[in-house]
């Protein structure tokens, strides 16, 4: 169990070195949050600032999101984040030589909703020293929580926990988890269409269309998102459920073959919608049809930029 502080030290050392060498002008990492159970993305530009960099069980945000358009940047990246960064290089959002990846092999990040379910009392403080557990403290209580009990769902099925394409690693490699078996997605087939539609409508019923999922997503770097289009206006602005569903479906399609299951979308959702359900349907299809996983090589072609003459599509008759 590497101590979080050891990892943090390694990150700080690398960050300072990269800044000093001029390899990077900014290091994108995490700092401690101002309230419990959080970290915040942090941009270190000086050695002094590097001292604020931390490693945590709550480093959920995918920092690759901050890469497009930057120059000389070093990125603190979990397995999924590093894959997103690779995707951004593949998609011309940042040149490979402007990017330096400080990979952090990751044992998963905490889902705060699961923590809240375990400990409904107000939490005043979190103490974390290792990457397998942490202690919650509040008015007159102190509880230790094992991380594996409160892992985000995407982290539980992450097969690429060690960033394989990183320029360096800030911690020893870790084995990948058993990959997502998509059992729930496959089980949808046993429901009637009406049941399925009801399920998905219920899933998004609280959606505010704040688009935090989109904004936290490293794939959503479009200068103007389709939801903001006005001519034609693709989506109504009211809280009509079909407009909301359309947003999620189209965002799912846009992410298909590109999503690394980093879970940022679900993490940031203020109403705790499992938005990855849409992505996962497509992820399963992409894997099944084209045996493709994004972010695993610098020169891969995303599935929607190519085709095979024998792509299977029996439904087209």
């Amino acid at each position, binding site marked *: 169990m590497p101590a979080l502080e050891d990892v943090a030290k390694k990150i700080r050392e690398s960050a300072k070195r990269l800044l000093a060498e001029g390899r990077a002008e900014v290091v994108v990492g995490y700092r401690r949050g101002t309230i419990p159970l959080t970290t915040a993305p942090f941009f270190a530009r000086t050695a002094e600032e590097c001292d604020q960099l931390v490693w945590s069980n709550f480093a959920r945000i995918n920092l690759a999101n901050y890469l497009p358009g930057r120059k000389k940047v070093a990125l603190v990246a979990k397995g999924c984040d590093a894959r997103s960064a690779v995707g951004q290089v593949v998609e011309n959002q940042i040149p490979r030589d402007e990017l330096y990846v400080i990979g952090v092999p990751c044992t998963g990040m905490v889902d705060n909703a699961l923590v809240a379910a375990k400990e409904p009392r107000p939490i005043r403080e979190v103490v974390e020293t290792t990457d397998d557990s942490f202690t919650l403290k509040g008015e007159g209580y102190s509880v230790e929580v094992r991380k594996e009990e409160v892992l985000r769902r995407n982290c539980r099925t992450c097969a690429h926990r060690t960033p394989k394409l990183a320029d360096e690693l800030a911690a020893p490699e870790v084995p990948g988890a058993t990959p997502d078996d998509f059992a729930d*997605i496959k089980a*949808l087939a046993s*429901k*009637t*269409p*009406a*049941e*399925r*539609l*009801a*399920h*998905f*409508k219920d899933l998004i019923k609280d959606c505010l269309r704040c688009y935090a999922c989109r904004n936290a997503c490293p794939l959503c770097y479009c200068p103007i998102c*389709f939801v903001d289009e006005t001519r034609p206006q*693709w989506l*109504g602005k009211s809280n*009509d*459920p*079909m*407009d909301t*569903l*359309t947003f999620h*479906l*189209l965002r*799912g*399609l846009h992410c*298909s073959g590109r999503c690394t299951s980093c879970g940022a979308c679900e993490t940031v959702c203020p109403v705790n919608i499992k938005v990855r359900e*849409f992505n996962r*349907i*497509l992820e399963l*299809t*992409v894997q099944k*049809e084209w045996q493709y996983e994004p972010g695993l090589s610098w020169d891969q072609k995303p*599935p*929607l930029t190519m*085709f*095979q*003459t024998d*792509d*299977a*599509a029996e*439904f*087209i*008759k």
Partner: protein
Amino acid sequence: MSDFEPKIVAFFCNWCTYGAADLAGVSRLEYPPNFRVVRLPCTGRLNPKFIMEAFKRGADGVWVSGCHPGDCHYIAGNYHARRKFILLHQLLESIGVEPDRLRFSWISSAEANKFQAIARDVVEHVKACGPNLAFRKEELKLGLAEVA
């Protein structure tokens, strides 16, 4: 439901299926009048958003048809389209859109009979699904009577 007449939006590529529909006309092959055709240069032009828009606006069904693989006037448009269709088809089916509401076909400009057969088939299947009440925008609540 027997008197239900579905509204279907069809997207045809100019070179093949639109041509097949033309030929069906020349050959006076009758089929039900339930769909309205949006002509595209190529199925490669079909943005999945168009399909969503049709459903959102209350289409009971959507029919997309283009050239057979290999026949594309633009060399590869339908191959690229096919990848999009594979994903869209899977996504919509998974989230509970009745599979029969969304139909894809390849019909060459010579296949007027196939066109007629599929046209009938599409209408019949959408009819069997009944009106699209769930996968569309809600009817606007005008509430004009309640005005104080």
